[in-house]
Structures are given as C-alpha cells and as structure tokens.
C-alpha cells in the first residue's frame, strides 16, 4: 500500500460535539477531492457524523481523536483513532445497542447506523487501549460491458507480463464476460476499479499473452494479511490450453510473491482443476445467497516456504478437530489446551465486525476479552440477522490464548469450524461459519 502523503488528509481534534461539523466537513471535502462522487462522499460524511457523535458521547468523550482520510484510488478510507478506558470498551461493539427498543435510544446505535451507509466498517486494536475504527466507501465505476465474447485464439508460445492499465481492464472485462460465478468478488465486474486497485498497490495482476499480444489468461493477487497472499484465478480464456496457461500464471504469481513477506498463498474463490494438485484443500465455505441458494466454495492453500511450526491454543471442545486437521495437513503444531481455572475475568468483550454489504458477508473477530462472550455473540447474531447479512464468519487466532475461550461459546451458538488458514494470524486462523441450517 502506498503511503504517499498526497493521498492522506489528517485532522486531530477533541471528541466533543461542537467540533462535529469540522469532522464531517473535512471527511466530505477530502472524499470529493479524492474522486468520490457527491453521493458517496455524503454517505461517508453521514457515517462520520454518526461515529463522531457516538465516540464523543459514549466512548472517548473529550479525548483526542485523530481522523485520517486516505485515498486508495478505488475507495476512500476514513480512520478514527482514539484511546479508550476499559470502562466503556463494550460500546465499541457494532451490536452494542441491538436491544434498544425505542427511538430515544437511537443515539446508542451510532456504529450500526454508520455501517449501513458505507461499504465496509472495521475496528482494530492497535496498541494497549488504542483503537482504530475505519470506514470505507468505494468509488462508483461503470460495470464491464456485457457484449458478446469473441472466442480467443491464442497461438504459439506464451509469455507472462505485468499489464498496463488497459491490459488490466481488458483482463477484468474478459473475466466479467465469462461464465457467471457467484463467489467471484464483485470488483471483477468493474474493470476501472481493478485498474485503480492495481495503481494504488492494493493488488497485482499478471497476464499471459501470445506473440501477437492476444490475452490467454490472468491472475490477480493481493496480501490478505501481512503473511498470506490471496489469489483470484488463474482465469484462463482458452480452455484447450487450460493446464499450460493456468500453470504459467500460477508460477508467475508465486515468483512475484515468494521473496516478499508472504509465507503462504490462499485461494478462497476456486481455481482451475489443472493447478489444484499444487495446493492443499483446506475446506469448504458456504455462501448463502439472497435467493436462498447455498454455494459451497473450496478453499485451497500452499505454503511458500518450509513450515516453521508453531504453538496453537485450543479449548477441549476442539482439540480433536485441530489434531485431525493438522494431521491431515501435515502441519507441525504444538496444541496446548486452555482451561478456565477460576482466574478473575472482568469487563465487556469487543468483537470487530467487518461488514461487506455487497456480498452480504460479515466477518467477526475477537478484539478484547471479557466475561460476556455468550451474550455478545448472541447480540451480534441478532444484529446481523436484522441487517440481512447471509454469510457470517467468526475468525479466531489460534496463536492468542484467550481466543480459545470463545470456541465452546461459538459451537453453542451454531457456529462450526470450517477451515484453518495457516499463519493468517499470530499463528493459524480458525474460521467458523454460522450454520443457518441449525434451528
């Protein structure tokens, strides 16, 4: 990600209502300057109003609030950084106010309301008691034209290249015009958006072309975390050479990532069968669609280096599951059981909720431990049900001992472990999915 200073507008102010308009005006003006349309800029401003009011009255009243607006070309991100005391931590849950029943309590719903107006909302704990709450709104782009797709006729030897902007758009257009794929990310419908994502350094694209420059296929990849690269594709446009083209693109993707920070390559949206033997099947994730249909997506993985092994923590309830999975994946792990031995626990837990409204997906992560796990999980489920979010995931970092305390709670609330992504956290990431088939 580029850190160019001309892409950042920052503001520091006290979290008090008299400064509300300064914050909203700053965000709206910056969003417009960064190329967001009038409507999208206004939405960011409205979300800022909700968040500022909420933080100023419930979370860090009178405290220092840093606001940073960042131009990531395809979207604008607004970050709110502040310190909190343990007394008001619980208010940072997006579902903190789901039990508010009357209009008077609407002010309690700041985060929930804010999340409805923008594309994504997320929250991370950066240091001791220092929180970063971020909202993002995408720029509006025209969709790829739905014209008739002329069959590709690729001839002779192929080479891989890093395409220019037009090449990126051509690749994305070709993907969008291919067979419909319900689990393909929405950005593949917008060639201009992907071109901007590449320009901003948020992802990379490699294409395969013949000597005449005819496009045979492409692959898009980006850092999912600092150590894991997520790959989309390889997309092959000439099926009679699928194995060759997909192999070439996969090798190119690996060559460009292997000497980076990445330790592994993950594919959560499927890949051609010809390259699946180079990966390990992690598991299946269900994608619940608005029309009621369920689509199972396979998740694949390969390490880029030797497995250094690591320590993971578990609750008794999932020890057998982890042993089975690690044995199946041949991963060297020391599994340590975490038990409640009556030690003191206090305070409200916080879950970070990343809501992707366009895909109807929510990803929850524990941010802060507490004594109210069960109630907090239930609140979040209720909130996400009201928001009509279909696919709900809960990610636990197996390298963080207190996360293990949530395992039994998640199981009791109809979450099921679906897969482990090695090294996607401090240690491995265990992904739970809310099982809608259970009563």
């Amino acid at each position: 990600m580029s850190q160019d200073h001309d892409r950042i507008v920052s503001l520091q102010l006290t979290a008090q209502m008299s400064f509300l308009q300064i914050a909203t005006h700053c965000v709206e003006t910056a969003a417009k300057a960064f190329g967001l349309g009038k409507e999208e800029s206004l939405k960011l401003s409205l979300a800022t109003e909700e968040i500022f009011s909420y933080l100023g009255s419930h979370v860090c009243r009178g405290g220092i609030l840093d606001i940073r607006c960042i131009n990531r070309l395809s979207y604008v991100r607004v970050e709110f950084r502040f310190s909190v005391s343990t007394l008001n931590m619980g208010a940072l849950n997006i579902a903190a106010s789901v039990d508010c029943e009357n209009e008077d309590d609407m002010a309690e719903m700041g985060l929930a309301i804010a999340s409805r107006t923008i594309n994504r909302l997320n929250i991370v704990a950066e240091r001791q008691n220092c929180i970063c709450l971020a909202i993002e709104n995408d720029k509006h782009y025209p969709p790829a034209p739905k014209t008739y797709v002329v069959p590709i006729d690729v001839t002779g030897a192929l080479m891989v290249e890093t395409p220019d902007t037009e090449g990126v758009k051509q690749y994305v257009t070709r993907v969008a015009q291919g067979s419909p794929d319900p689990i393909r990310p929405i950005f593949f419908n917008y060639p201009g958006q992907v071109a901007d994502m590449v320009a901003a350094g948020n992802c990379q694209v490699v294409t395969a072309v013949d000597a005449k420059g005819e496009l045979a296929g492409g692959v898009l990849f980006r850092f999912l975390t600092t150590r894991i690269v997520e790959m989309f594709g390889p997309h092959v446009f000439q099926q009679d050479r699928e194995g060759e083209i997909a192999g070439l693109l996969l090798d190119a993707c690996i060559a460009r990532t292997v000497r980076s920070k990445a330790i592994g390559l993950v594919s959560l949206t499927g890949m051609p069968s010809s390259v699946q033997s180079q990966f390990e099947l992690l598991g299946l994730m269900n994608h619940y669609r608005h029309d009621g249909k369920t689509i199972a997506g396979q998740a694949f993985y390969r390490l880029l280096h030797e497995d250094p092994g690591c320590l993971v923590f578990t609750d008794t309830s999932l020890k057998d599951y982890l042993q089975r999975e690690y044995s199946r994946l041949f991963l060297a792990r020391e599994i340590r059981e975490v038990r409640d031995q009556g030690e003191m626990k206090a305070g409200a837990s916080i879950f970070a909720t990343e809501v992707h409204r366009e895909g109807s997906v929510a990803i929850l992560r524990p941010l802060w431990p507490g004594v109210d796990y069960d109630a907090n999980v239930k609140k979040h489920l209720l909130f996400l049900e009201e928001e009509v979010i279909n696919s709900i995931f809960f990610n636990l970092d197996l390298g963080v001992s207190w996360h293990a305390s949530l395992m039994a709670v998640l199981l009791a609330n109809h979450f099921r472990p679906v897969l482990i992504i090695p090294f996607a956290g401090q240690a491995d990431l265990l992904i739970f999915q809310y099982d809608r088939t259970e009563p």
Partner: protein
Amino acid sequence: MIEPNLDLLVPAYVREFEPYIPSKPDQELQKLYGCDHLYRLNNNENPLGPPPGAQEVIRRFPPPRGAVYPSGDSYYLRQEIAACHGIDPDQVLVGNGANEVIAFVIKAFCSQGDNIITADKTFAVYEWVAVFSGIEARVIPLKEERFDDEAMLEGIDAATKVIFLCNPNNPTGTYWSRDTLRAFLEEVGGKQIVVIDEAYYEFVEADDFPDGISLINDYPNLIVFRTFSKMYGIAGLRIGYLVGDLKVVDMIRRTCIVYSVNGIAQEAALACLRDETGHIRRTRELVREGKAFLCAEMAVMGLPVIVGEGNYLIVKLTGSDTLAYRKLMHEGIMIRPMTGFRYPNHIRVTMARMEAMEAFVAALKNILA
C-alpha cells in the same frame, strides 16, 4: 513509556523486508514433526565433515584461547589462500561465511538509486542484501536452467553496479564455461563489478569449468567468492572469502568488519587448505555415487531431475514441494523445497551417505504412494 516511531525511524526498504527465519534446531524439529532421527539433506552440507586436520584443530582448540581476540583480518589464512592461488594476500578478504562478503561488496559499490543484477532462480542472498540495503535487485530469468548471459547484459544500465553470478548455480548445478565467462566479461568491459560465487567450486569435475581467481589479472572488475562451508565441511564455523584485484579489494576493505571471523574458524580453514588426505576426492566420490543412485531411482519413479555440478540435485514432483517437505519431515528426512528459489513443486536434495540416500528414496516413495 514513549514507544519509538518505527515508521519514521526505519527506512521503508527495511520495514517492508521480511526477515528470513532459519529452520529451528534439529531437536526442536524432531519434536515438532515427531521423528526420532533426521537426515539433513537440505543445506548442501558435507556428510563427511571437515578434513581430518581441521577436525584435529577443532578438537584441540585450547579453551583459554577463547578469551583472546582472533587475528582481525585473518592474517595467516589470507597468506595461505594467496599462496594457493599465486596472488597477493591483500587481494583476499575473509568474512564470517560467504554471506558476509556479499554484504561487504554491496556496501562498497552500491548506493541509493543503484541496482544489482542476478538471476531469478539462484542463491537468494544477493537479492536479499540488495533489497534490505535499499538497492534494486534485477532478477533475470534463467534460460534452460542456466544464467542467461544475453539477458543479463541487456539488463545493465547506467545505475548497475554489480552483477552476481553463481557458478555452478545453486540450485540447478548449471555453469558457464571458461569461454562463456570470458565472453561475458569482455562485453561488460569493466564498467560493472562482476561477482562469481564459486561456493561449489571444489565439487566441479567438468573440464571446461573456469577458475575465476585465475581470470582476475585479465579482468580487474572480477571478484570471486569461495567458502569453507561446503566441500570443507566447516559450515558451523562460518568462514568464507573473496578474492579480487588489489585496488578493488582495497575499496571493499573499507566496508569490511574486522574481527568478525573467529579464531577456531581461521585455524580450521588453514587446515582445510593444507589437507593431503584426499578429502576432496572422497567427497567427490560420495557425490558421484549419490547422484547416480538418485538419478536411477527417480527415473524409475518417473520424476524428472535437474542435475549438474555441485553436491545436490533437483527433483520435480507432481504436487506441492512445501507439502512434500512436511511429509518427508514426518519421515525424518529434511530436504529443501524449491518454491523459495522460484521453482515451485521442485525439491533440492543434498548428496549424502548411501544410508541417507536410501532413506530418502524410501520416504519419497512412501509419501507419493
């Protein structure tokens, strides 16, 4: 407590560089993978160990000498190396393994905005040192598993300071002949420093393989690396060296950290050079035998190999090499997965005693069954 602002204090090229995490110690690995033995076929170590004279030096190193600084510039060792090659001792710089002399060279010749040229599928440390020093590393794809001389020459521009060649190449074992190397140096014409890493020089049996050190008189922009870690089996003591033209080495000496090579390593290296027991012959025989055995076994299994000079070969698998690494570790065999060398689905295997070679083949058959 005020935490330092590392975003401001640390240059971006350092912040964004991923530190290399070496393997855990064998005992830890055995515990993790649940194996009661471990054949180390991953680091191209010499299973015969050091020559007898060097073993004796290590055994008899007087403990009180541990309190005394070693020669800061490996004085006697440089004299011995110089005598072996008929050069001036001041043409030699000794480092804490050849890795350290790579850093000396990059520090001496490169500054911000410069670049180095190397290959994509070769020893990674040239690229790493350049990148975490803020220097661009241009990696030229191998051509038919060999360094591509034409493409490397085309990659040179006004900011190119150093070209790193690995001869024979680790991991492919391919090499440039004397003629190819001379032609390349002629084309470069002294405008850049050319480094030839000859870490596996002593294993080479091909007649047309060049002795880089003998070319330095003709090409003063040439620097040659050698190591005691591979053929001489003292990898654990960390010692290697570079040889170059007097004026060039005088420049590199300015970036060289003195006293970085310990006393026992210097004395053991001296003993390695003075070996008259046939250590090199014995090792070459072991390597030859291992390669013949593995090539035959891999052919039976239908697995292609890339084999050339050096004490290693590459096996192409049908699936993930990193998965094969983990499966083989459970069987007590440690190989090098090649994805990190940009050879996905390939593994590199070090030649070892027949017992280890047979164990490797049995384990490979088992995991592929």
